[in-house]
């Protein structure tokens, strides 16, 4: 294989991987911080995508403009959902394991609810629109323009989130909460506002990812589930709660998939991801990058 082909392969893997990392960020925040395994994560991504698509096709508004809008809309939704559902769970669950199990089941129900709501409103056909679909030539390799944009945005947001968590006071508070709930409360970190806020940000991030993805891929009500699974795999690879790990894990997964698809059979892609997933969960449940 020529050098160009190798580079194209690796880069296409990285691009897909960057997208995976972005998708996983929101889920990571929710699970790492609040032990809420939001299995409906992909559905909120799908909502962001549909919102952007609807606005694009009806009003012709650019998806770039929709990036902050979809973030805010879904963040508001996240705050609402947290207030309606998860607050009561926190109050009524006697220990963290029960809370985790119940949270999982609630998000299960949300998955059913949202996926079918969208399907009922907009129908089940595939939809999409073209935006910046012309290929961009870099050296001797070619990549679709919109995919490059998505990759760039993914990097920006991942790194931005990591910086936010590491440098700002809010970020430090979030990291403190991740390590010890009680300890953080004892030093005055307000969980009552921080939890819904982080949940909302997590959903906002998935909406944002959906908005970006709608530029480059077709959308349908069922598109959410594969992304949820991918997000799960990424945060397992990277270690729960670690943003840097999610980024690294996402990129790694993208490259593994690209190589796997190229050297074996494209239909083995899903199989490969699941094997990686189960392998990591069994052999290194704390993630590949933790010590």
């Amino acid at each position, binding site marked *: 294989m020529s050098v160009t082909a190798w580079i194209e392969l690796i880069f296409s893997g990285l691009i897909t991987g960057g997208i995976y990392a972005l998708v996983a960020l929101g889920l990571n925040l929710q699970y790492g911080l609040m032990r809420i395994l939001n299995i409906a994560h992909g559905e909120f991504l799908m909502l962001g995508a549909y919102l952007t698509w609807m606005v694009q096709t009806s009003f012709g508004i650019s998806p770039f403009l929709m990036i902050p809008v979809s973030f805010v809309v879904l963040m508001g939704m996240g705050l609402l959902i947290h207030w309606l559902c998860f607050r009561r769970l926190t109050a009524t669950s006697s220990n963290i*394991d029960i809370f*985790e199990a119940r949270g999982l089941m609630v998000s299960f129900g*949300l998955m*059913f609810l949202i996926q079918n709501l969208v399907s009922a409103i907009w129908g089940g056909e595939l939809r999409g629109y073209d935006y910046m679909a012309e290929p961009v030539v870099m050296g001797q390799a070619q990549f679709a323009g919109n995919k490059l944009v998505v990759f760039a945005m993914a990097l920006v947001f991942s790194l931005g989130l990591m910086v936010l968590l590491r440098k700002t006071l809010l970020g430090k508070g979030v990291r403190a909460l991740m390590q010890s709930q009680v300890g953080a409360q004892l030093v005055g970190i307000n969980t009552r506002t921080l939890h819904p806020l982080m949940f909302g940000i997590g959903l906002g991030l998935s909406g944002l990812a959906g908005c970006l993805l709608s530029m480059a891929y077709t959308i349908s009500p069922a598109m959410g589930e594969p992304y949820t699974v991918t997000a799960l795999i990424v945060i397992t690879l990277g270690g729960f709660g670690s943003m840097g790990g999610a980024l690294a894990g996402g990129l790694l997964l993208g490259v593994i998939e690209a190589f796997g698809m190229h050297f074996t059979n494209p239909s083995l892609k899903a199989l490969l991801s*699941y094997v990686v997933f189960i392998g990591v969960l069994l052999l290194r449940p704390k993630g590949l990058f933790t010590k």
Partner: protein
Amino acid sequence: MNTNANLWRDVLVLFGLTGWALALPSYGNEFVVSMALTCLMYVALSTSWGFFCGSSRYLSLATSAFFGLGAYTTAMNLDSMPWASAIALGSGIAAAVAVVMGLAVLHLRGTYFAVLTFGMAELIRHAISYYEKSVHGTVGRVLTTVPEMSTIYHTVLLLAVITVALSIFLRRTRFGLALLGIGGDEQRAQTLGVNTRWVKVAGFAFTAAVAGGVGAAMAVRWTYIDPHTAFNPFIGFQTVLIALIGGAMTLWGPLIAAIVFSILAETLRLQAPQIYMMTLGLLLILSVLYLPGGLASMRWQTFKDWYRDMRQWYKDTRYEWSGDKARDKQRAKERRIVGL
């Protein structure tokens, strides 16, 4: 609790329901029988799921995998073996896979376990897809020898009865108590002498055997199966939903919920499948939030508690919004500063 009187009551109820289900094909039309068949399928699936996962709190999302394995066993072998053997084989293969899976995976904590079983179910689905495509060159299979409807009906009925009967008896034995202990505090149960590893594997294999047998029987309802229909994750999800909403730890909860949802499914699903699924999702959320023990745990006290909670919420909100709370806080602060 589990006294002899209760045992007789449970057995009698089971007899009654069985008799009624047996008589159904004689006077019901095709639609009713078909609905009853789906209902019996979910009774078996959700009762076995509830028995293991409800007590031990290990939520398995692998039901679809075992169902599909049973379905494929029938599809591949029905031409060469009698009906009963095909069902037994489907059940046995599913149980064997569950033992292997369980030994590898059951030492993980609840959420990890749930996610992992889901991953493994999808893995099996994709593996079979790939195998069919590359080795057999097909996407799906056509079932040629199809037994009569009454055979299918009675087989699934038998499986459902066996499952409920086992659930009635096993929960009164050491095995049932061990599962409860594992769900309560696994490490404590271990220090009291429970070999948790094998108990969990056995419970998991039980759910798999039932799912495999039911899958093997139901496969012939579709003349053409492919991995997508046989391993449809929705079957697994619906089982979990039904068991949870009905009350996973109880005996009759999953059964009652299975009946309710089968009726709901057959009536709603054809007109408005999305509304049906949305209802399912909403009911699950409501049930987890307000009725964690499921429908079967509802008592008069539950309604009284809800009423009391609502009144308390109303009082609290009114207190906060009318400004009284702010005033009381201010007064308390002043008192502290003055030092009274």
